[in-house]
């Protein structure tokens, strides 16, 4: 058993030394892997940051219900009760036509506006804050509310929020797509690296086979090489994204300050970092195992 661990430690060590001492060409290979991993990682962070920010927005989407001009107090209280009972309504405020007019007059300095118009043209209104943020559910709610009796229209006054959420979900999809494609690239690149190594060490493999080495013994150094390569590439990729975030954050917060918002790219959380590194190492080892299974069989006796 001790020997088993010794062999693993030995393979791990010599594979690491080999990676650290490798020629410039293989170093470029490693950098290429790192950049490939950094791409989806940065996108992931950008989308996650955007999502964090969107979650913090106080301006959650609101739906404004405009009553018909002819609506009576009874109609208004009916709508009031409906909204009270509605499970998807978090809160609402009623703004009477009189209130609305007063606000408008003071805000815009249009004293005596109604006199000029010969009456108050504004309708009574409810401003509804829904519980949901989901664009689809918001749509349904809007349709439902606009169908209430004596309600003229229900306006979704935050269609930008809808666009924001659509953008975030697109960003998620793009992240996973990139992660899939570049993860496959990681598998293929490691497959190729290990294939080249196996071919370069044909003699050694053949001789060790001849004197009784099982496949696991022959495969071990290659698997460790792939493991280290995946780990190192993931760490470099992480470093790249950290650097990107640090470099971009001042400009982003400057820009956001123009809109009185606080936005910045966030860093990976420890669990996310662990998952990212473990995933990269796993993909690299899958590539190595595929190469080993395919090519070791062709070297040496049977």
């Amino acid at each position, binding site marked *: 058993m001790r*020997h*088993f661990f010794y062999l693993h430690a030995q393979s791990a060590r010599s594979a690491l030394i080999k990676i650290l001492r490798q020629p410039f060409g293989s170093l470029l290979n490693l950098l290429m892997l790192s950049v490939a991993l950094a791409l989806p990682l940065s996108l992931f962070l950008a989308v996650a940051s955007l999502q964090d920010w969107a979650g913090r927005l106080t301006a959650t989407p609101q739906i404004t219900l405009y009553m018909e001009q002819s609506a009576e107090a009874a109609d208004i209280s009916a709508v009031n009760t409906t909204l009270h009972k509605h499970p998807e309504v978090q809160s609402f405020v009623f703004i009477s036509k009189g209130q609305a007019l007063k606000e408008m007059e003071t805000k815009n300095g249009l004293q005596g506006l109604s006199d000029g118009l010969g009456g108050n043209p504004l309708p009574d209104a409810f401003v509804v804050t829904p519980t949901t943020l989901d664009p689809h559910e918001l749509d349904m709610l809007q349709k439902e509310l606009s169908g209430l009796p004596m309600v003229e229209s229900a306006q979704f006054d935050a269609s930008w929020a809808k666009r924001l959420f659509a953008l975030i979900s697109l960003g998620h999809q793009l992240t996973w797509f990139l992660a899939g494609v570049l993860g496959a690239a990681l598998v293929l690149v490691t497959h190729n690296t290990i294939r080249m190594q196996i071919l370069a060490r044909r*003699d050694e493999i053949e001789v*060790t086979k*001849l004197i009784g080495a099982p496949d696991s*013994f022959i495969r071990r150094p290659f698997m460790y090489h792939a493991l280290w390569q995946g780990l190192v590439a993931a760490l470099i990729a992480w470093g790249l994204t950290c650097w990107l975030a640090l470099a971009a954050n001042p400009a982003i917060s400057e820009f956001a300050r123009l809109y009185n918002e606080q936005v910045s790219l966030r860093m990976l959380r420890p669990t996310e970092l662990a998952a990212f590194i473990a995933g990269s190492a796993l993909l690299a080892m899958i590539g190595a195992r595929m190469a080993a299974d395919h090519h070791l*069989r062709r070297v040496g006796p*049977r």
Partner: protein
Amino acid sequence: MIQFDQVTKRYPGGNEALKNLSFSIETGEMVFLAGPSGAGKSTLLKLIAGIERATQGGVLVNGQNLTRMRGNQICFVRQHIGMVFQDHKILFDRNVFDNVMLPLDIIGFDRRDAARRVRAALDKVGLLGREKSMPIRLSGGEQQRLCIARAVVHRPSILLADEPSANLDRAYALDIMELFKSFHQVGATVVISAHDETLMEDYGRRIIRLREGQFAA
């Protein structure tokens, strides 16, 4: 015990290297294999080590039929065999010591004992002073002795030597024969091939004579 049961070996696209051979070698026996170049000596030894597979017939080593075994099982049979290859099969990317260490690494030998074993094996073939040398700096005969040290270092129960004294002068050839004999004396099965029989006859052992893949008269 090694047993050949009507074994024929045909190389792809080639002639039959062995033709319908049946014989057996007892456990602990020391046997010589003689015959001119191309007679099939190396092929016969490779069949015992599971390096080549019989085209027809059965090859039994210690009761296991190699012709029916899969590649990943045969390696464990090979771990009990020490083989001196005709073409040495030395690894030129590591020094003499590490070459001899290889079989011990494979079978999972304790490291400290292993270093002692390696030195003992190198001592037996007269290479103790060269353990740090790279094999490329060794003469043909020294390379051959390196190969012998690697074949015996893990004390295999079967020792197969394919023309082990081909590149050695008579003094060294006799030393090597004594080494093989000492293995035989502690119970190992030993098979040694050579194309010239002069060395063998002094030992009074059974000689299997091959010619064109068959027993010679």
